[in-house]
């Protein structure tokens, strides 16, 4: 796709994507939804393998060695991981 765009537009798209990903909006979304699903009891009704996968995702979010995830998100992910 980048080959069909002029260089300046391609650079802008890369910059914007980088900002979106590093902003951590997807991490926040997943943590919020998993937290809500636990509160209303939906999480427990999921298949154990699916639960395990979601918890594994949360575990990766709160990995202290991960430099991509912001500190605030790590803390919240850890809180939700322990509760769930």
């Amino acid at each position, binding site marked *: 796709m980048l080959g069909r*765009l002029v260089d300046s*537009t391609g650079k802008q798209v890369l910059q914007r*994507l980088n900002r979106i990903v590093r902003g951590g909006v997807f991490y926040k979304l997943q943590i919020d939804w998993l937290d809500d699903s636990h509160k209303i009891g939906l999480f427990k009704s999921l298949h154990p393998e699916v639960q395990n996968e979601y918890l594994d995702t949360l575990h990766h979010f709160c990995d202290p060695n991960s430099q991509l995830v912001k500190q605030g998100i790590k803390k919240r992910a850890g809180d939700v991981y322990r509760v769930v």
Partner: protein
Amino acid sequence: MIEELAQALHEQQQSSQEEQLQQSIKNLDQKLEHVPQAKPRRFDTYADIARHGYFGVEKQPTGMLQNEDVANGVEPILQQWPQSPVQHEVAPAAQYARMNHLQPQPPSAAPKEDNPLLKHPKELSYVDKKMIKNEKLSATWLQISKHALNQEYQRAYEMALTQADDIYLLRLIM
């Protein structure tokens, strides 16, 4: 003596010409009284609204059927159409309704004043403002997706970068 007579004749001719002119003006005025005068309106079509903005609208755009038109049926509109230059904008909608055998619907219960697009910006509630913003973003997204479908990716990405939110850029990329 001859000069005086010539002067008098000249004055008489002038007065008769003035009388004729006044008479013709009166005749014209009488004829004009029977010509229907179309009131100028600032916003008659959606194109005008798009050009001038949503606000300051005195009446709903006439490109669509109005509530009273729907209640009365389309036939009266079609009968009046050729006689008035203002009503021709209503006629295409009415013609469309007749061609597609659409039945007249009762006027909606909501009054026209509830349309947020017709309100003054100061009267808009938070929800109204959000709704207008969403409608503008949706229109922008339609334009972006149209460019993408036509494989005009440069224009599509430029629009997504400059006029739309992050989510629309992601949607375009996906």
